[in-house]
Structure formats: C-alpha cells, structure tokens
C-alpha cells in the first residue's frame, strides 16, 4: 500500500474483465499480489514485466501444489522456455481456476496440465507421473508396481473409449463431465 505502487489503468481493467472470468475485485487483488512479487524497481510497469518461475512458486496458492511446475509451464507464454509469467499469464491462470470459468475451459487446461510430456495425449507414463504427484514425493508414499498397474488399468478402462491405450482431449473432457468433484476441486481463489 505504499505510494510507489502503480495503479492498473481503467481501460485495461475493463478489458481484462471482458477477456477473463474474473471480477473487478479479483483482478485488482491479482494486480496487488503480482506487483508484490516484483522487485521494487520494476513495479512501475507491472503489465509488461515478467516474473521468474522461482518467484511465482513462492505464492501460497502454488507452493503446496504438486502440479506447480506444470501450471507455470502451461500458462507461461515466454518464448525463452524459462516458464516465467507476465501479468496477463497470471490473469489467465486465475481466470481458468476461478469459480465462474466454464467446465469446458477447466477440463481443457486440466488436460494440458496433466499431459506431462506435452504430446497431446495422456499415455501410461503421464498417468503414472500423475498418480505419483498425487500421493506425494518420497519413496514410502508411492504405490507399489502392482498397485500402479491395477490403478492405471482401471483408469484406462473407465476413460479410454477408442481403446488405443491413451486418453485424448475429448475422452478426457467426457470423463470429466461425469466427475462430480472436478468443479469444486479445480479452483484457486486468491
């Protein structure tokens, strides 16, 4: 709340309201939190600054999240591939994770987040990495090989419609539409 904090211009605010699912309050809060991540000198020009990934991961909403690296990678539009995020990337991320985002958008981005090798489908390796993310890091918090096999077999049975051993986007969206917990769990609110 210091005097050096710059304000978000009004036209930009209404434009962001139109292009994202966030409300005015949420955009202003996001602006505040994003400027707090920048070093003091760069706070004047928030909209064009880029925050390195290490800084983004200090946010409480992301630091406890096992998918933190994937989230940064998916939403970052950085050409260098260093997964740094601009303010608009940050807004994009919050918009997808907000309450009012359509389940279409959420499932689309969930697919991209879970697709660890970015090949457009969820194959066995992706699912294995996904389950390991869920159960936690560390050797004692992993499923045994037999259990993992059984689990992946069950998942593919439930979701793989064309039986090609992988889950593509439409199969994923279909299975998500019947999942009652997805809308309430795939949510980040600042």
């Amino acid at each position, binding site marked *: 709340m210091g005097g050096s904090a710059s304000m978000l211009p009004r036209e930009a605010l209404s434009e962001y309201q*139109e292009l994202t699912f966030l409300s005015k309050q949420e955009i202003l809060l996001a602006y505040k939190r994003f400027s707090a991540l920048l070093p003091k000198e760069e706070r004047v020009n928030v909209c064009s600054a880029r925050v390195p990934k290490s800084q983004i991961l200090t946010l409480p909403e992301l630091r406890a999240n096992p998918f933190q690296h994937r989230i940064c990678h998916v939403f970052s539009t950085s050409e260098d591939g260093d997964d740094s995020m601009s303010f608009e990337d940050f807004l994009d991320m919050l918009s997808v994770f907000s309450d009012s985002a359509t389940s279409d*958008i959420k499932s689309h981005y969930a697919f991209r987040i879970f697709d660890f090798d970015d090949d457009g489908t969820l194959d066995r390796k992706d699912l294995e990495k996904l389950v390991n993310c869920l159960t*936690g890091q560390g050797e004692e*918090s992993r499923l045994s090989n037999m259990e993992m096999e059984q689990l992946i077999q069950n*998942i593919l049975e439930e979701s793989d419609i064309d039986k090609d051993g992988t889950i593509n986007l439409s199969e994923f969206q279909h299975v998500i539409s019947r999942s009652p917990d997805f809308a309430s*769990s795939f949510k980040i609110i600042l």
Partner: protein
Amino acid sequence: MRNILKNLVINISTIHHTQLTPRVTLRCLHCGLCRCIRCSEQATEVGPAIQQDWNKYQSLQEVVTGLAWTFNKLWLPEDFPAAAPAGFLQQLPSYQSALRRRAGGSQRRAGAQGSAGLSGGEPRGPEQQGREPEARPAREQPLSIAEKRRLRDCQQADIKHLSGWQQWKRTSSKSLRKVLNEAKELSSHLELWRHDIHSIEGKFGTGIQSYFSFLRFLVLLNFIIFILMFSFVTLPSIISKYGIFNSTIAKIPPKNTEPHCTVYKPSSNEGLVYFYTYLKDLLSGTGFLEVTSLFYGYYTIDAAWFSVLNYNLPLAYLLTTFAYLALSLIWIIKRSVDGFKQNLVHGEDQFQSYCNKIFAGWDFCITDPNAAQLKHHSLLCELQADLEEERLKQKIADRTMKEKLRIYSLRICINIIVIAVLSGCFYSIFRATVFSRENSSDVSNTDFQANLLVQYLPSIVITLANFIAPQIFSFLITFEDYSPAFEIRLTLMRCVFVRLANIGVLLFSLWSHISDCATDECKACGYNYELYPCWESEVGQEMYKLTIFDFIIILSVTLFLDFPRKLLVTHCPCKPVQWCGLRVFGISDNVLEIIYGQTICWIGTFFSPLLPAIATIKYFIIFYIKKISLMHTCKPAARPLRASSSNFFFLVVLLIGLVLAFIPLGISIAYISSSKACGPFRSFNTSWAVVPDTIIKQFRDDELEHHDIGLEHDAKGAPAYSVLKTAIQLGCKAAIFLSERI
C-alpha cells in the same frame, strides 16, 4: 472464401522437409505453382493430391488447422511456427481480391486467425472458431490473453458486416452479461463468512469446507423461518395486544366445552422469589417465560382488527406453519438437485470411480504445506484401500457355502443385537419422559438442582443415547465382514436412524401421556386437562429444553474436553497420551449433531414461534466454536468424505429429518384435540379444523349475500322458482349425506 476453397488443391510431398515432417504444398490455380505452406518455398516434386471436402471449412485458417489436426501424429506442435503460413496464404491472388472486397479490418483478421489458430498447439474442431454470428465470446476460448484480444478485435470487426438486428442482439446480450456480472459481484460481498470459509478450505480441503457451508445454509434457513413466523404471527399479536395502530383483539370463549377444560393458570412468580428461580425458568421455559410470546399459550387471540381490517390469527398461524415447512422443503431440494442428478443418473459406483479420484483428486485450493501432506497421505490410503477392496471382491466371490452360512447367521445375530440396543434406548427415553413430567410439578421449588435435573431428564437421556449407540454400532460392524465402504455407509445409516428416532420416541411418549384419559371429564376435553391444561406450551417447552441442552453440550465438550486434551497432548510427552492424540474432527458426527438440532427446531416452531430465532443464534455461535475447535484442538480425519458425496449426504439426511418432522406435526395439528384453555385454536376441535371452517364460513356468507340480493330483485317472480328451489335443496342434502359417509 468459398470459391477459393473449392479450388484448393493440396498435395502431400513424399520428400521430407526436415527429418521428421513431410511437406504439404498448396497449388495455386492461377499460376500452377506449388508452395510449401511452412516455408513458402517453391516445390517441384509433389505427391498426390489429398481428396477432402474443403467446403466444410469457412476460412483458409480453418483449412490449415484442419490439416494440422489430420496430421497431428506427424507434426509436433513446436514445428509449426506462427508466422509462415499466414504470410504465404495472403499471397494467393484470390485471397487478395477477397480482401479488397472487404474494405477495412480484414488485414487484421488474417493476422489474428493466423496466429490464434496455430500457437494453441492443440487440435481444435475447425467449426468452432470464427464462425459468425454465433461465435463464442473470446473469454471462453482456451487461448492466452493476447490471442483472445486479437480474436475479440476481429469478432468486433465482423459485427460491422452483420445486419442491424443481429448487431443489436449482440450488443444487448453483451450489456446484459455486464449487468449480471455487476450484480453477482455485489451479492458476493453480502455472503456471510466468506473469508472464514475460504481460509478453512485452504487449510483443510473441500471435504471439511462443505460442513461449514452447510452450517451457513442452516443459519440462513432458520433466519428466514424466524422472519416468516415473526411477521405473520408474533408481530400482529403483539401489536393488537398493546392496541397500537388502532387495533383491538377479541377473545371468544369456546362454546360447547366443559368449563373445567378452559382453566389455565400459568404459575407466574409472585412475591419474593429467589434469583435461581429466574435461572431455572430461563433454562426450562417455565414460570415467567411461559407467558411470553415464546410459547403457544401467549397467542390466545381468536380475531384481531387493525382499524377496519380483520386479521384471522388462527388461520395465519396454521398457514405460516405450512409455509415454513414448504419453504424448507423447496430450498433443500433446490440445493440438492445437482447431487441427485449425479446419483440417480450415474448410480452409486460412478461417484467413487477411479477417474474421479485421480483427475479430481487434488484440491487446488490447499495453501498450507501441512494440509498438503495430509492430503497426499489420505489420497494414498484411499487408493490403496480401494485397490484392496477390488481384490477383496474376488475373495468374496470365492467363498464356500459353509462360509456364507456362517457369515449370514453372524450378521443376523448382530442385527438382533442392534435392534435390542435401539429398543433399550427407546424404552429408557419413554420412562424418563413420563417420570420427568409426573415429577416436575411435585418437587418443590426450594430444591433447585433436583428440579432442574428432573426437568432435563429426557434431554440428558437422549444425549447419552446419541453418544453411546454410535460407539456400539462402530464396534459391532467390525464383526460383520462387509467391504470398508459399505461398513461406513451402514454405520452412518444406523446412527442417523438412532438420532431421529429418539426425537420421535420422546414426542410419542409425551403424547401418550397427554392423551391418557381415564375419567369422563378428561374424555370430554379430549386430553389430560389436569396435568396439561395447555399441552402445546408443554410440548414447546420440551423442544426449548432440548435446544438449550444441545447447545450447552456442544459448548461444554469443546471447552472442557477438547482444550484440556490439547494442553495435555502438547505438554505431556508420555506414550499413552501421545497415542490417544487429539480428537478427530469427524464430519459425519458433527453433521448428524446439527441435523438433530434442526429437526427439533422444525417440530418445535409450531409450538414455540420464536424458537427459530434461538436456533439461528445457536448455529451462529456454533460456527465460531467449531472453527476454533478445528483450527486449534482437532486433527482432520485420515479419510475425509469427498466434497460431492458429503454435500449429497448432508442434504439427504436433512431431507429425511424434515420428512420425519412432518409426521409429529401432522398428528398434533390434525388428530389431537387442541387445548381449550389457551392458544388460537380454542374454538376448534383440532388445529386443522380452522381451515375448513374458514372456507365454509366464507362460502356460506357469500351465498347468503347472493340469496338476499336475489330476493331483493324479485327472484320469487321467476318461473318455476319453487320447483328449482326444492330440486336444489334435495340435491345438496344428498351430497352432504354422501360426503359425511365417505
């Protein structure tokens, strides 16, 4: 665009462009040259033309995207640079002429579509993008903000080419959406406890958060019920009793009743009274509290007039009761519609499906690293348990006949034990209630504690039964050898049954005592006038006592059990204490507790119109108690219920409680004679009788008026007047005769 597309000829070259990707060229029909669509290089060797129906695409951009989709497996997304195709496609002469035809923003449009389509990197249906005028708004596209901006700009450019009607439709829907967004933003400020629930969600996940959302819903529901009862029943009574706004009341003594039924002297305190008498009265609803507007006995008004308007208070009382029951039913059903849909359509299995657990398993709202650890651990346990259960199913299917017989007979034995436990509970509640009512007037006022104990005996017994029975059930179920998920569900169902049936038994024992008539005088009144001159107030007092006691128990357990336990665990390092640990915040136990309180409130509001206000305050305070208890003295359960199944479970049990509340209310309104000494239903046989009475009286008055008007206008002079009159009289008598018999 269409004429260009018809003439597109697309060739695949077998010569590899790079190591990995084949060359795709577009043949220009004007000059016959083939150019690679990636690098615009002219190609001399080309492969066979691809036959496709290019007409289904609306624009060149969709063609390119469609190509990318077709060859997804061959082309990796990174290989597709954003700039090249757009530049090349614009050089096609026919495209240039199309551009010239559309003056203005088409340059931007080509640019937007060029980059918007390809940098997404994901194959998207070509039909979905850029179609006019039903295009999806920019924010619903899975693109980055910069791309959405370009898409929106070209959508706006397209608007200029639409007819006036469609333009108006577009702008009006846009402004409507803006207005709705503003309204939603404003209403979110009014939401109660938004910040508290958000912080709980961040620390504990959505399972526990759903309990607190449920509590908030009950606070609101009780508040609305209180507003309803207050404005239609209490406020008119108070206004007319004190004569404000020129109002008067009429107390019509009931006709055709014995005088002894109408004697009612509530023992208000006179003379010198001890302080603890007031405390006792406050806690048990007797004495000075009995004659206030808290209880039914205050509303001994048969009609009220506000200047010239006649306010039928008995009818209002009854209709408000029906109104709040209907309101609760509709609100609960509306809230649970989603859960029902999922459950009914997909069946129980899909709820717990593996895909749901894996893809929707992580709560992205968790911010606390400790909570994240806990969540990891609980997910691991849940997955392992489910996988084991699946392996167990195989084992169950392999059971021999002898094994099956043994297990079924064991289960029958245990169910008999469960029924015996339940009967024990019910019988003790019955005896306690009867004992309490018989002795509460006997014990003299000087023995304060004993009197209070006797008054609260039914509540104490019910609370003990609610505490002991679930422990017994969870112990017994381990012998029955069910699968873990079914065990949890069966124990839960038994606990729900115990809690709700206890209230039913209490009311039943009260009523059997009230209607217990030995003498003829008693039969003339229809109820036991000696012990219960105003029986509705007595029932109201029992409900009041239950509510107060419930609240005191919740408060004391947190203060006197949880906090000392937490102090012990943090400061005492010995093994047994550490093994005991903190209390587990069991969601289902807490939910059953508040549903039990809510059922009492629903039943009691008819007998004690201000009870919802007490319930609102009670739940308001309980929210903060539970929140503090959760944050500081409890640990979350190892396997919490999932949010979706929690919500569904809470609302189903609440609905069962509401339906169960209908039964006692229905019996007291329609079956048991209303008391003749107090209350608005003195002049009726039962409380329900006011409705048919009012309707019939209304009709009769109307018809008499019509009769008089008709006679005034020489109806007797009409032909066949006497014949018609006799015929109608006979017909009506026959109808009355028939309806009395049915």
